[in-house]
């Protein structure tokens, strides 16, 4: 089924439309749009997390959860695994995708660097939402040095 395509088209349209609707000229407006997209991603991530097979929910430790996101969740959502996972073993993880599907359609390199964050906000929320369902509170941000490679930084929030 071409579900992935349908989601990608919807995501692209959402980025275009929500941005146009919410944006103010100043930098405050930009943050508002990113947080709207991130919030939507969070809701979806939570719902997806609830649909995961039950046996995956019994993780031994935090690192297992992150590995699960990099393999199983990423494959389920983007049909590929995350390319690398690094951690400082103190609650910060960096997940790197060398050819992130939502950035693939844009020209590689630096041409669309400024636009890239809009295309990552939803996915940051998705990660944060899935983690939330798995019992982990986090902050997720993304950075792009050169399309289509991007890094997601997950910082676990200790309550």
């Amino acid at each position, binding site marked *: 089924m071409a579900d992935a395509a349908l989601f990608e088209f919807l995501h692209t349209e959402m980025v275009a*439309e929500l941005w146009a609707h919410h944006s103010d000229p100043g930098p405050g407006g930009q943050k508002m749009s990113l947080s709207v997209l991130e919030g939507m991603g969070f809701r*979806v991530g939570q719902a*997806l997390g609830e649909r995961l*097979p039950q046996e995956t929910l019994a993780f031994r430790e935090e690192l297992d959860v992150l590995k699960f996101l990099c393999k*199983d969740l990423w494959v389920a959502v983007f049909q590929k695994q995350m390319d690398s996972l690094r951690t400082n073993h103190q609650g910060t993880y960096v997940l790197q995708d060398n050819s992130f599907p939502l950035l693939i359609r844009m020209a590689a390199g630096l041409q669309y660097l400024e636009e890239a964050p809009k295309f990552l906000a939803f996915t940051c929320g998705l990660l944060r939402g899935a983690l939330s369902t798995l019992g982990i509170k986090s902050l997720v941000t993304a950075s792009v040095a050169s399309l289509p490679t991007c890094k997601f930084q997950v910082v676990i929030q200790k309550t």
Partner: protein
Amino acid sequence: MSRPAHRRPEYHKINKDLFVLTYGALVAQLCKDYEKDEDVNKYLDKMGYGIGTRLVEDFLARSCVRRCHSYSEIIDIIAQVAFKMYLGITPSVTCNNSSRTEFSLILDKNPLVEFVEELPAGRSSLCYCNLLCGIIRGALEMVHLAADVTFLQDTLKGDRVTEIGITFLKKLDEKKYRRKK
């Protein structure tokens, strides 16, 4: 893990749910942004139109549809190939007028509303799935066919089935319906 992750059947479901859940989050956000149902409906249609104009290329690339010589053939392709490809369902088709320009797609099951029990309170005029109308309208316009696409029946409004009405208007380009890009 003993089995490769991508072979697990649960992940097909997650992938399918992703679009439906994202759509739900979008509708919820638009309901926050717009007070009037008509405005949400219009926005969904507009977004759908934008998607449709690009989706049609994706569709033509994935399918090997032959040239169509009538509106009926086009509607059959939408129902049996496109809907099946993207949403996994095959609506049935009826023709509503003798000049064969008005058709209906009847969906017994609508995947978009899988997680929706009922319309939110105070939103009785909301056309939850209006994105679909925009998509069909946008896709048809890219192959030079102008059409009105609206919901005639909606399970979320108490109807038994979901019915999408497609009415072909004057062709934008007389020669075009013989050729498919």
